[in-house]
C-alpha cells in the first residue's frame, strides 16, 4: 500500500514538472504559432542558472525567482533576434530554426558548464523526510508540489482575470481583430515567448534537485512535453493538465515495473491515442 501512495505522489510531482514545461510550450504556440523546439534547452538553461546561483550562495527560493527571470531575458533576446524573423515564413522554417537553436543552446551550456552531471544543493530543512499517511516522503518533493500548484494558480489568474491575460486569450483566437483594437501583436508575441521561457526556467530549477542537471536533460523533457501536448490537444489547458498527470503516472508505473523501456510505453500510448483521436483527448486542439 505504501508503495502505491509513493508512486501516486511521485507521479504527481513528475506530471507537475511536465505540465509546467508543456504549458509554456502551449502558450507560445497558441499565441504566436511558433512551435519552439528549443523549449527543452531553455529548461536546461534554467536548471544551470539555478545551479550556479545556489552554488554561489543564493538561497534556493531566491534562485527559484532569479533563474527564471534570467531565462526570460535570454528568451527575449532569442525572440527579437531570430524568432521574429520567421513570422512571415512557413512553419517548416520555424521548426528547423528552433531545432538549430536547441543544439546551439545545448552546445553553449556544454561550453560554459562542461559535461559533468551537477546537483542543486538544497537547504537543510528540505532534505528531511516527513511521514505522509504512513509513508516517509522527502519534504522537498512536497514543496515542489506546492510550488507547481502555486505556479498553476498564478497562471490561471493571469490568463483568466487580468486584462493582459484576456488580451492574450483573445489574440490566440482572432489575432487580426485584436490588432484592429489597437493592441500591438508584436508585444503579445514577445510577452508570450518570454512567459513560456520563464515557465521553462521555473521547471528547470525545480527539476534540478528532483533529477540531476546535465546538458541533454532538455531533450527528454521536450519529448515528454510534446507527448503531453499532443495527447491533451494543442491549445487546451485542461487537456494538458489531464495528459500531464496521465503521462506522469504511466511513466512512473512503467519505470517501476520495466525500468529500461519506460519511454517506449509512453510513446506507444501517444501513438495509439493519436490513431484513435487525432485531435487529442479533449478534441479542442487545432493542428495546422
Amino acid at each position, binding site marked *: 500500500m505504501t508503495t502505491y501512495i509513493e508512486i501516486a505522489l511521485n507521479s504527481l510531482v513528475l506530471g507537475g514538472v511536465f505540465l509546467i514545461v508543456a504549458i509554456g510550450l502551449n502558450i507560445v504556440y497558441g499565441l504566436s504559432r511558433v*512551435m519552439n523546439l528549443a523549449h527543452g534547452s531553455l529548461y536546461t538553461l534554467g536548471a544551470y542558472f539555478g545551479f550556479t546561483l545556489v552554488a554561489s550562495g543564493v538561497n534556493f527560493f531566491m534562485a527559484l525567482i532569479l533563474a527564471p527571470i534570467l531565462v526570460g531575458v535570454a528568451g527575449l533576446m532569442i525572440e527579437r533576434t*531570430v524568432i521574429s*524573423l*520567421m513570422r512571415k*515564413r512557413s*512553419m*517548416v*522554417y520555424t*521548426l*528547423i*530554426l528552433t*531545432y*538549430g*537553436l*536547441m*543544439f*546551439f*543552446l*545545448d*552546445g*553553449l551550456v*556544454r*561550453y560554459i558548464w562542461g559535461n559533468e552531471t551537477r546537483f542543486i544543493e538544497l537547504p537543510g530543512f528540505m532534505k528531511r523526510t516527513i511521514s505522509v499517511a504512513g509513508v516517509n516522503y522527502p519534504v522537498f518533493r512536497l514543496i515542489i508540489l506546492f510550488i507547481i500548484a502555486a505556479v498553476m494558480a498564478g497562471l490561471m489568474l493571469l490568463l483568466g482575470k487580468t486584462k493582459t491575460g484576456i488580451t492574450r486569450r483573445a489574440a490566440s483566437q482572432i489575432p487580426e481583430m485584436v490588432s484592429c483594437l489597437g493592441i500591438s501583436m508584436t508585444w503579445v508575441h514577445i510577452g508570450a515567448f518570454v512567459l513560456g521561457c520563464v515557465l521553462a526556467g521555473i521547471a528547470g530549477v525545480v527539476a534540478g534537485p528532483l533529477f540531476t542537471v546535465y546538458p541533454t536533460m532538455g*531533450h527528454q523533457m521536450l*519529448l515528454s512535453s*510534446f*507527448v503531453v*501536448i*499532443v495527447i491533451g490537444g*494543442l491549445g487546451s489547458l485542461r487537456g494538458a493538465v489531464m495528459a500531464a498527470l496521465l503521462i506522469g503516472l504511466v511513466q512512473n508505473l512503467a519505470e517501476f515495473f520495466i525500468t*529500461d*523501456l519506460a*519511454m*517506449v510505453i509512453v*510513446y*506507444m500510448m*501517444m*501513438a495509439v491515442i*493519436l*490513431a484513435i483521436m*487525432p485531435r487529442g483527448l479533449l478534441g479542442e486542439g487545432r*493542428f*495546422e
Partner: protein
Amino acid sequence: MMMENPASVFASEWPERVESTPADHPVGTKRLLTGCVFLLILGVLAAFPFMVPNRFYIRLVNEMMIYGLLAMSLDVLLGYTGLLTFMHNAYLGLGAYLAGLFLIHVSPSSLWLAFLAGILCTSLIALPVGWVQVRTGGLAFALLTLAFGMMFFTIAWKWYAMTGGDDGLMGVPHPDITLFGWVLGSSGRPLEMYLFTLFIVSICFLLTWRIMHSPFGAVLEAIRENEERAAFIGINVRRYKLMGWMFACILASISGVLFILFRGYIGPTTMTAFSGAVILMMVLLGGMGSLWGPMIGAGIFIYLQDYISTKTEHWELFLGLVVILLVVFMPRGVAGLTEFLRRPERESR
C-alpha cells in the same frame, strides 16, 4: 536524365507542371545537357578512387555518397511532399541494424539477401508508423516523427541482448559483392565498397528522379502546395502521403544497408536526435526540392564535419549556429543559389 531516348521515357501525361524545378522544361537540348552533366559527375566519381588512391579520401567520399542518399530521401518528404521529419536517420539506423543482425545471425555471406532483409523489415516497421503519422497534420506529423525516432533510438540503446546497447552492433561480417554472378570482391575493402556504393546510389538517384518527375511526384508537389485543394480535385491525400513516406523510408533503409556494409559497425549514436538534425541540415544546405542539392549538401557537410571536429570539440555549438544562419539568410540552399544565378538567362530567352 536518361540519355538514349529522352522523349519516350519522359513522355508525361501532365504537360503543365509546377514551375521552377529545373527539369520540367520540355526542351530536348536542356534534358540532354542535364544528362551530360550527370554522366560527367558519375564519370568523375567513378574515376576518383583510381586517381586518388588514398584510402582515407576514398572512405570519406564513400560516406558522403551514403549520407547523400539519406539526405535525398529526406528531400522526397521535405522538399516534395512538404512533410517535415526530424529523425529520418532512425530509418538508416533501422536498415543498418536489421541488415547487420541478418548478416550476423542468419547468413554471413549473402549480400543481396541482407539488402532484402534490411529493406523489407524496415518497411514493415515504417508502414504502421507512417499510417499513424499521416493521420495528423504538418506540425503533429513532425512531432510524431521525433517521438517515434526517439522510440527507435531508446530500443537500439537499451535492448542490450539484441542490439549490443551502448557498444553497438559489432563484428558484422563483410560479404562478397556479387553482381549477376560476377564477384567484385569483399565489401570490407575500400575500393570495391566505393564502386558498389556509387552503383547503388546512382541507381537510386535515377529512380527517384524519374519518380519525382512523374505524375506521382506532381501529386506530391500538389499536396505540398495546398493540401485542401489537392483533396478537392480527388486526390487521396493520406494515401499519397503514406506512399511518399514509404518511398523515403525504403531509400533511407537502402542507405542504412550500405552504411553497415561500409562500416561493419553501427551504434546508437547514429540514431540520436542530433544526427537527425545533421541530416536535416544537409538538406537545408543543399536546397530543398531539387534532389541533387541535398547530395551536394551532404558532401559539403561531411567534409566540414571532418575538418572542424579535428579543430574543436564544440561541434554542436557550430552546427546549431550554422543551421540558424542558413534558415535566416539562405533558406533555399545551394540549389537556390544556382537558380538565382540562372535567372537572368531565363528572362532573356
